[in-house]
């Protein structure tokens, strides 16, 4: 029996719930609470990840070009094989948006937008970005946040149960699921803790280097993003959920210098096959309004 779960159940029951204690299904409540606060196994993580991935793909669906998707899956799997969780069920996809962003969900889901792919120059840059997202999965950044949110919501759910009539408990599991789903939408529109992002940058670079790529790819992408006019709106979500490119560049370049990453600077860049893949993307939409001059851009 999990002690924290037992304490939480005991605590809830002592907080004004004794009269309904007999009318709700204690084992169901206990099971739900336990599920929310104990470390999940890989199967559960994959289920939570599939729900989170479904929400993300509900916002932007995968593009249909199989050659592009298979390419990104091969590169992504090769980078993921260098991580501490090579055996996860890794799924990568390019999603149908011209905006610039990338996402990870528990269990091995990694998505990046068509817009981000267009702003890269070679496979090493792609490997760096995928390495960043793979790190979020490996270190369970989103999983921990979703669990934390679920736990907080559960207290509210349990209190509601206490105020309801007999029979309400049959909806508890469904309520919990809905709340976890809301937590997913909330987390991905607000973002992770900034330290998680800085950690993902550093570890992502290491994964790309271990995979035999030029480790400066991620830094190069961040420099490219630093040059994108924020008023274009292309990075609204990215900037709302991540530290600024300037802060990430500063932290990452300091770490790379201290870690002597320059000795791997001559590793593979994979420009030729990357450029062939990008050619398969549909043409970029035509801008109808002029972007503000870049010289006025400060990040």
């Amino acid at each position, binding site marked *: 029996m999990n002690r924290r779960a037992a304490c939480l159940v005991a605590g809830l029951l002592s907080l004004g719930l004794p009269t309904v204690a007999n009318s709700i299904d204690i084992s169901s409540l206990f099971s739900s609470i336990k599920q929310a606060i104990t470390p999940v196994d890989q199967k559960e993580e994959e289920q939570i990840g599939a729900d989170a991935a479904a929400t993300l793909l509900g916002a932007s669906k*995968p593009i249909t070009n199989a050659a592009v998707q298979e390419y990104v899956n091969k590169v992504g799997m*090769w980078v993921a094989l260098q991580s501490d969780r090579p055996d996860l069920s890794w*799924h990568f996809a390019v999603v149908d948006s011209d905006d610039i962003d990338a996402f990870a969900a528990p269990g091995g889901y990694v998505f990046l937008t068509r817009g981000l792919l267009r702003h*890269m120059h070679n*496979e090493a840059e792609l490997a760096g970005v995928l390495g960043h997202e793979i790190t979020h999965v490996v270190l369970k950044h989103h999983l921990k946040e979703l669990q934390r949110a679920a736990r907080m919501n559960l207290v509210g759910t349990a209190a509601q149960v206490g105020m309801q009539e007999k029979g309400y408990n049959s909806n508890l599991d469904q309520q919990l699921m809905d709340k976890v789903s809301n937590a997913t939408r909330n987390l991905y529109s607000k973002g992770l803790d900034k330290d998680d992002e800085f950690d993902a940058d550093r570890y992502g670079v290491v994964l790309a280097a271990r995979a*035999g790529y030029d480790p400066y790819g991620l830094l190069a992408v961040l*420099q490219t993003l630093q040059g994108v006019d924020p008023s274009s709106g292309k990075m609204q*979500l990215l900037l709302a959920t991540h530290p600024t490119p300037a802060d990430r560049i500063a932290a990452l370049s300091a770490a790379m210098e201290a870690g002597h990453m320059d000795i791997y600077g001559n590793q593979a860049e*994979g*420009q030729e096959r990357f450029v062939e893949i990008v050619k398969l993307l549909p043409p970029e939409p035509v801008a109808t309004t002029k972007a503000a001059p870049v010289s006025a851009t400060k990040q």
Partner: protein
Amino acid sequence: MKRSLFIAAMLLLALGVVQADSGTTAQTVVAGNMNDGPYSDANVVASVPVNTNLTIIERQGGWYHVRLASGQLGWVRMTNLRLNSAGSGSSGSSTPAKSSTSSFFSLFESGRSGASGTTATTGVRGLNTGDIANAKPNLQAVADLAQWAAKPDAAREFAKQLPAKAVKVDSLPKVKP
């Protein structure tokens, strides 16, 4: 030693390094040296003050090959530069030529598909915080991902073709910038 390093660097260049899109410009954010090769012990060919405009030719590892306004060529550390907006990266030179009808079609794609519905550009498929906050789960799209998944052996073979070889690399320290 320097000469052999330089020759090695030139050979690598000949084998094909990153070709940045022609016309990507940048400014120096700190003063620094411009070298005759992409490594710190190469010969210094110029001292470049802060806020110097230059054009990027290519990148190799942590160095950019650049051209000054004077036409002088050399290599500077990538973190000495801040890049200007040059539209997209590789697509800048590889986007298929627009057909005469492309702007016609774009008339029918009014605005962004995103929930916020801003119309800064035409035909742009957006993805903003509102789109995420209002997303309806698409479980079928998740199930469909399996069709593109790569088996580990296929990924290994693909890396070998590049070639990208797995190497041992230590974790990076957390350093205050």
